[in-house]
C-alpha cells in the first residue's frame, strides 16, 4: 500500500459500515460436482442474489450514500449520471432511488433488455449509445451538460471501488480456509477493491482475475506492463465485461493481482450451463467467467496448489429469451 492510495483497507472497512443493513451479505455455496470437475474445493459467492442482481449495487450504494451525506441539505436536488454496460446502471439506479436522488444512465444499445428495463424500473432516465468507449463518454458529457448531474464513474471512483471491496472482507469471514479468490474483470473495480481488502489482511491469499479471451485487456495490460484499451468494445457473450480496465484499477491490479486467466466463449457458456443445471443458480454469462477460469487447464497448471478457492458469481441479470442463443 502506498501513502496516497485512495482505495485502502480503511476505505473498504468504512464502506462496509455504510453498506451494513443495506446490501445483502450474500451466501457462499458449494457444489460437489464442480469440486470434482475442478479438482479442488470451490466456494461460490452468490452476488447474483445481491440487490439489483449484481455486486455493482455495493459500490453504487457506497458512492451515493457518501455523496448524499456530503451534500447535506441540498442532497435532494442531486442528479447523477453514469455510463455502464448494464449492471452498474442497475445498481446505481436502485441506490439513487433508495436515496431519493435522480439518476441518468447511459448504456450501449446492445445491452441486455433486462438491464435496460431494470434501470428504468428504479426511476432512472436512460440514454442509449454506440457500444464504444468514446460514444459512452461523449453521451455522458452531453447528459451532464444538459442536467448538471454529477458523474459517478463505475470504474474510477474510489467510493465505488471501496464498496465492491466489501466482498473481500465478507469472503475472509465466510471462507476461513481460503487460499485463493477468482473473479471476473471488466473495468477492474471489483478486482481492485477485493484485492486491496484481501491483500491488506492476508497477503498470502492469491487473487486472480478472469477474462474472456476476446475481451482480454487486463491480461494484455499485465503482459505488456502498461494499460491497454480496446478502442471499440469487444463482443464477448460476457456482455458485462466488454469494457476496458480503468486507469485507477490498473494501478492496483499491477500491484495486487497474482494473475489474470483468460477463457474462451465456449468455456464461459459451459460454466454458465453447469452452474444453472447443477447448482440451480441463475447467473449471467459475465458471472460465469470466474467459474470458467477455475475449471480451465491453465488454472489447473498454474494455480493447482490452491485447494480452497472462492469464486465470485458476480451477477444474474440475463435475458431468459436469449438463453438458447447464449447456451
Amino acid at each position, binding site marked *: 500500500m502506498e501513502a496516497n492510495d485512495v482505495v485502502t483497507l480503511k476505505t473498504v472497512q468504512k464502506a462496509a459500515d455504510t453498506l451494513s443493513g443495506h446490501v445483502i451479505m450474500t*451466501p457462499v*455455496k458449494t457444489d460437489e460436482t464442480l469440486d470434482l470437475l475442478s479438482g479442488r474445493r470451490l466456494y461460490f459467492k*452468490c452476488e*447474483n*442474489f445481491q440487490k439489483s*442482481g449484481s455486486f455493482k449495487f455495493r459500490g453504487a450504494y457506497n458512492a451515493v450514500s457518501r455523496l448524499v451525506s456530503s451534500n447535506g441539505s441540498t442532497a435532494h436536488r442531486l442528479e447523477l449520471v453514469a455510463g455502464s454496460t448494464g449492471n452498474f446502471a442497475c445498481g446505481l439506479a436502485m441506490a439513487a432511488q433508495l436515496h431519493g436522488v435522480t439518476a441518468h444512465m447511459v448504456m450501449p444499445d446492445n445491452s441486455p433488455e*433486462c438491464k435496460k428495463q431494470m434501470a428504468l424500473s428504479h426511476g432512472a432516465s436512460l440514454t442509449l449509445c454506440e457500444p464504444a468507449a468514446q460514444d459512452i463518454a461523449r453521451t455522458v458529457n452531453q447528459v451532464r451538460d444538459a442536467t448538471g448531474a454529477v458523474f459517478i464513474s463505475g470504474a474510477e471512483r474510489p467510493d465505488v471501488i471501496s464498496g465492491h471491496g466489501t466482498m473481500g472482507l465478507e469472503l475472509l469471514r465466510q471462507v476461513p480456509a481460503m487460499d485463493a479468490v477468482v473473479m471476473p474483470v471488466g473495468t477492474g473495480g471489483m478486482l481492485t477493491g477485493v484485492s486491496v481488502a484481501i491483500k491488506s489482511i492476508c497477503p498470502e491469499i492469491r487473487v486472480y482475475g478472469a477474462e474472456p479471451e476476446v475481451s482480454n485487456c487486463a491480461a494484455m495490460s499485465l503482459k505488456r506492463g502498461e494499460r491497454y484499451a480496446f478502442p471499440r468494445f469487444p463482443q464477448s457473450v460476457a456482455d458485462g465485461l466488454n469494457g476496458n480496465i480503468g486507469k485507477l484499477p490498473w494501478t492496483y491490479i499491477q500491484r495486487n493481482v497474482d494473475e489474470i486467466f483468460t477463457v474462451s466463449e465456449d468455456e464461459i457458456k459451459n460454466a454458465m*450451463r453447469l452452474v*444453472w*443445471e447443477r*447448482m*440451480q*443458480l*441463475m*447467473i449471467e454469462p459475465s458471472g460465469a467467467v470466474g467459474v470458467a477460469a477455475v475449471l480451465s487447464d491453465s488454472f489447473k497448471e498454474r494455480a493447482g496448489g490452491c485447494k480452497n478457492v472462492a469464486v465470485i458469481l458476480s451477477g*444474474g441479470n440475463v435475458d*431468459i*429469451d436469449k*438463453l*438458447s442463443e447464449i*447456451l
Partner: protein
Amino acid sequence: MNTNAEVTLQTIEEAARTLAGHAIRTPVETCETLDLLAGRKLFFKCENFQKSGAFKFRGAFNAVSRLVRSNEPTQRELHVVGDSSGNYACGLALAARLCGVSAHVVMPNNAPECKKQIVLSYGATLIQRERRQDFPQTIKQVQEMTGAVYISGSQNPDVISGQGTMGLELLQQVPDLDAVIMPVGGGGMLAGVSMAIKSICPDVRVYGAEPEVANQATLSLQNGERFVYSYVPRSIADGVVAGIGPVTWTYIRDNVDDIFTVTEDEIKNAMRLVSERMKLVVEPSGVVGVAAALSDSFRARAVGFKNVAVILSGGNVDLQKLPELLLM
C-alpha cells in the same frame, strides 16, 4: 421389505436421522419483491438445491437406506425399481447409487430431457414408455428379471416419512410460521409434511397447490373421497399431474387444511418472478406453491397470516425450454 406401515412423527424423526449428512438441509430464502406482491412475508424452502435437484431425494434415500439395512443379514444383491414423471426417478437413481444398490426407473417418453439425463448420469437403468398405463406391467417385468423391490415414489411410507423431514426443518427455520404451501401431485410431500407439522404445531395451516387442469386433490377433498382422472392431464407443471394415491389420500384428508388451484399463466408468472427476482433455477412444478401464494383465493383465506412458507420443490428444467415456458 421392512417398511413402517404408518407415517407418524416418530417415523419422520427417524427419517431425519437417516438423512442427516446425506440430504441437504436446504436454506430458506426470502425476497422483498415477492413479499410486496403477496402482502405478507414469504419463506421459500429451496428444494431446488436438494441432491438430484428436487425434494424427492429425501424420500428415496430414506426408503433405499432402510431397505439396505433390513437386507444386510441376507447379503443378497439389491435392485430397486420405481416409476416416475421425472424427479423421483432422479432421486431414486442417486439414492441407489449412494447406497450401493442397482436402480431401474420407468419414465414416460415425454419426461423432460434433463431428468432422463440425470437418471442416466447416476448409473440407473432407464426404461421409457409411451403410456403410463404400461408402467405396472413394465415394473413387473423388471421385478421378474432382477428381483427388484418396487418403491413407490409417493405411496411408500418410508418415502412419505422422508418427505416429511421438510416439515421438521421448516418449523426450525421459520419462527412464528402461520402456514405452509406446497405443490401436490401424488401427495407424498403433502402427506409427510402435513403429518410432521400438525403433530408438532397443529395451529400452523398446511395447504396444497395444484394446476387447475390437474385438480384431483381439490376434487378429492371436496367430495370426501379420493378422485383421479382417467387420463393424465397436461400442464406445464409436468411433475404434479398425477392424482393422489390411496395411502397419501388418508393423510391429506386428515391433516390438510385446503388445496388451492392455479392457472397455467399463474404458474408461468410465478416461474418468471422466482427466476428473475430471486435468481433461482426452478421448474414449473416447483413454483406451483408460489403461484398459489400470490393468488386471489389464497389472499382471501390468508387474512392475518404474516409468515407463510412456500416449498420450491425442484429445479430440474430443460434450459432450452425455459423461454417458451415463460411466454404468456
